[in-house]
């Protein structure tokens, strides 16, 4: 019998204080964003790792325009034969996603024939297609970055916000239009390789070693680290909390001055980046450089610097060796098939794009909306710049058009909503990873590969009842090698600076903003994620043993536990539990 995890705790008409169900009715393609209802239990819902803090009311824009518009649109356009993209429900402030199936066999067949026609030309012309898309995104980005909000009237700010949202929505149309075909091609290749008897642990290597925009950022962070060391600023970093480093450096004077200038130049290029994917509630490094400075601080604690050239060359060498070794085990006919798939996946390289696109889309695309919301907050006299992020879209539209005053009622709602947000932020670690009816299998490529909802994960969450006695976890062997160290269980990227070199990072899942941490950890373990999840890709690039899709690592493993991670077999062993459970 199918395992059903109840959704009752999330069923509410109340939700965010002052929320009206009508607020979630922004245009959607197949299925709208909603709070949970009892009948949702018939479907399968997984806790989305992208927003470990939860979403503010304005953050809901992503659910509406990302999943419930763009993913559904892309799944219809390519199309995916058995799926209509992803929909979501809200458990408190947290997002649970679910695949939208196509059930009619005739329609699935028709869609499969359409995919046969549309997929090959997309893959063959990927370079040009993605180049054009990137240019489109960059052009608009330059426009929004150039806006002087102080010169705009409230109604112009409103117009700017509407445009910024439209830009955001368009960017995610692009995002999913690219992601689905690249992933379908990659998973097809990966599965074929498995069927050809190739070691799954090797397949991920075939496409590694290509530079991305995100790696470029990491490289610059290390350059700044070297510069700080050379300028003798280590003690200033060491003596200050991440949040105080900037003022400490200013106060320090001397060599710190020129270093800060270099740092600001860095921010102008790489600082339009949030500490998390697609969340309007998150500041960029420009707005708050604490994460970047904290990262440099922790890099300074490492004795040796991360040698990017060496790591990259090693990744390339490993890639070529893995390809050669794989080909040698194949018959001539199999080699032909393999070569064709490899060439196709290199021309339209999902693992590469998966990291690269974050720079252009996920990590910065919410910023123009954020700037507009903050400017509106200033203009209407909100107590804090971020207060408008606790308004729903309809409310900010009304307020900025002058139809509704930002009065005591709204101010009080904002405060209540902040408390509501805080309440659910605390609950996050104990939320069920999945709710509803756990299926035999999932066939949306994004859910399989990015969320790691493979059969192993599904069976692991099914068996979750006995988790407290588990001493060994297994998952996807995502990046080879063995690493051992004290576990650091992190629930969001804000805590990244708590990581000490040599620790084992244990988390739900990582996002691009977690990348710099890989230069200092001994190993990485994730609850979710497939061989192409962010952690898997970065683990391989950095040579960090990584196991993904363990299902329960953040529940089973506690801070301070001594764990061993075998990235070649996918096995994670708790060798010694921390005495107090919390290290």
């Amino acid at each position, binding site marked *: 019998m199918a395992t059903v995890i109840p959704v009752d705790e999330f069923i509410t008409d109340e939700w965010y204080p002052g929320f009206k169900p009508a607020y979630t009715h922004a245009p959607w393609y197949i299925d709208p964003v909603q709070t949970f209802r009892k009948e949702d239990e018939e479907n399968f819902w997984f806790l989305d790792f992208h927003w470990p803090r939860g979403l503010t009311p304005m953050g809901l824009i992503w659910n509406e325009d990302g999943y419930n518009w763009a993913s559904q649109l892309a799944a219809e356009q390519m199309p995916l034969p058995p799926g209509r993209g992803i929909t979501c429900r809200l458990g408190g402030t947290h997002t649970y996603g679910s695949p939208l199936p196509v059930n009619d066999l005739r329609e699935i067949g028709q869609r499969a024939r359409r995919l046969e026609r549309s*997929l090959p030309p997309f893959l063959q012309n990927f370079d040009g297609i993605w180049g054009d898309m990137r240019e489109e995104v960059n052009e608009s980005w330059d426009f929004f970055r150039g806006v002087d909000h102080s010169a705009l009237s409230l109604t112009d700010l409103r117009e700017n916000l509407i445009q910024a949202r439209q830009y955001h929505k368009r960017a995610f149309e692009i995002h999913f239009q690219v992601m689905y075909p690249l992933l379908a*091609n990659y998973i*097809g290749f990966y*599965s074929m390789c498995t069927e050809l008897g190739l070691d799954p642990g090797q397949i991920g290597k075939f496409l590694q070693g290509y530079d991305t925009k995100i790696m470029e950022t990491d490289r610059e962070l290390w350059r700044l680290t070297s510069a700080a060391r050379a300028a003798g600023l280590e003690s200033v970093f060491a003596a200050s909390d991440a949040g105080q480093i900037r003022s400490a450096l200013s106060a320090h004077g001397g060599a710190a001055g020129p270093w800060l200038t270099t740092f600001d130049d860095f921010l102008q290029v790489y600082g339009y980046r949030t500490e998390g994917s697609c969340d309007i509630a998150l500041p960029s490094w420009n707005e708050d450089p604490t994460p970047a400075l904290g990262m440099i601080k922790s890099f300074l604690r490492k004795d040796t610097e991360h040698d990017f050239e060496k790591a990259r060359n090693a990744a390339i060498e490993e890639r070529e060796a893995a390809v050669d070794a794989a080909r040698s085990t194949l*018959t001539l*006919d199999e080699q*032909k098939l393999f*070569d064709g*798939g490899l060439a196709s996946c290199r021309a339209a390289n999902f693992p590469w794009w998966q990291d690269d696109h974050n720079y252009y889309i996920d990590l910065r695309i919410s910023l123009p909306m954020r700037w507009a919301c903050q400017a509106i907050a200033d203009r209407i006299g909100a107590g804090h710049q971020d207060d408008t992020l606790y308004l729903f879209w309809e409310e900010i539209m009304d307020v900025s058009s002058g139809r509704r005053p930002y009065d005591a009622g709204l101010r009080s709602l904002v405060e209540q909503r902040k408390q509501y947000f805080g309440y659910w932020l605390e609950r996050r670690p104990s939320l069920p990873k999945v709710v509803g009816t756990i299926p035999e299998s999932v*066939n949306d490529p994004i859910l399989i590969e990015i969320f790691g909802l493979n059969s192993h994960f599904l069976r692991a969450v099914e068996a979750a009842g006995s988790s407290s006695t588990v001493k060994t976890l297994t998952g996807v062997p995502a990046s080879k090698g063995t690493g051992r160290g004290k576990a650091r269980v992190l629930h969001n990227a804000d805590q990244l600076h708590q990581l000490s070199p040599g620790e084992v990072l244990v988390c739900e899942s990582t996002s691009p903003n977690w990348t710099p941490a890989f230069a200092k950890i001994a190993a990485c373990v994730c609850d979710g994620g497939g061989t192409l999840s962010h952690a898997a890709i970065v683990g391989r690039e950095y040579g960090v043993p990584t196991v993904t899709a363990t299902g329960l690592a953040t529940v089973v493993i506690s801070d301070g536990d001594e764990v061993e991670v075998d990235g070649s077999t996918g096995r994670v062993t708790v060798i010694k539990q921390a005495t107090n459970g919390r290290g």
Partner: protein
Amino acid sequence: MPDPITPAGAIAWVDDIAPDQAVGVCGAKMGRLAELYRAGVNLPQGFTVTVEAYRRHWEQAGLDAVADTALRGLGAGAEATKIEAAAATIRAEVAGREMSADLAALIGDAYDELCSRCFEINVPAAVRSSAIGEDSGTASFAGIFDSYLGVSGQDRVIDAVRACWASLFNARAVAYRLRAGLHYADMPMAVGVVELIHARASGVAFSAHPVTGKTDRVVIETNWGWGEAVVQGLVTPDHVEVGKADGRILKYQVADKTVVSAFDYAAGRVVETEMPARLVSQRVLDDEQITAITDAVLAVERHYGYPVDVEWVLDRHRREGEPVCVVQARPVTVNTPASDTPTEWNPAAMAAKYIFKT
């Protein structure tokens, strides 16, 4: 009394019997060797005690009555203990009946001839059951009937022939026939007596993957010494895969081989014993030997025109470039062949197959 059996009626040499009669006269296993001899495959010297010889002995010894009585009332659903008891009764009777002096003399003479062909007095021989229909397309008795390796001297060979006849009434064989609705008279038992090749290494080779059914490769499993431990599954053998198109070695998995079939000179037969430590994890075959085995199995496949499974032996005196020795061949029993794997990369087809499952 019928006329005494003639030498030509009782004994058929592998290199002498006409291929179109071979299986009918010599049973499945030995008949096929005769076919392969004509196809130019390298085989051991040997002869068959024919189906006719078995029939004569059976009649003279009056064994029909024994078998019919013992098997009376047993059907497809008979209890294992009853089958076992009936089979034991028949085997005891079969073992107790002397062979006619005529036939014993003919087998003794043929064995002497084998010794002189092999330039060895009391040459150790492999005495193998070779029943009619034992590995037909519909029923496989593979491994059910007895074989004796390393039998030397006339008397021992004659005893081994009788033991092979008796193995027609192994409990497993009786049960198998009851289930398949076959009568023992449907599968008369010839017995092969062939020179025992002094094996450095032996094994099996398939001209299609026995599990996936892929016909693009040869799969070899091998162990040091004789092949019994491999055939009976007593050892995890080295596993080798070779691409048919270019003869390239695709895979060589060296196993920890803890058991070996070795010649026990004191007992005068091949026995399973512990593998010497230094050989346990040592790779059995070099590339040249693998090529020779591949050539042999492909020659057999070409001859029959369908995938085959071959037992082969590497003679310890074999030199580079010489063929390996084939001691058995039969049609390979595989799962459904790997179906519709395309030969060109087709992303939509792959996605449909692996992700969307449409």
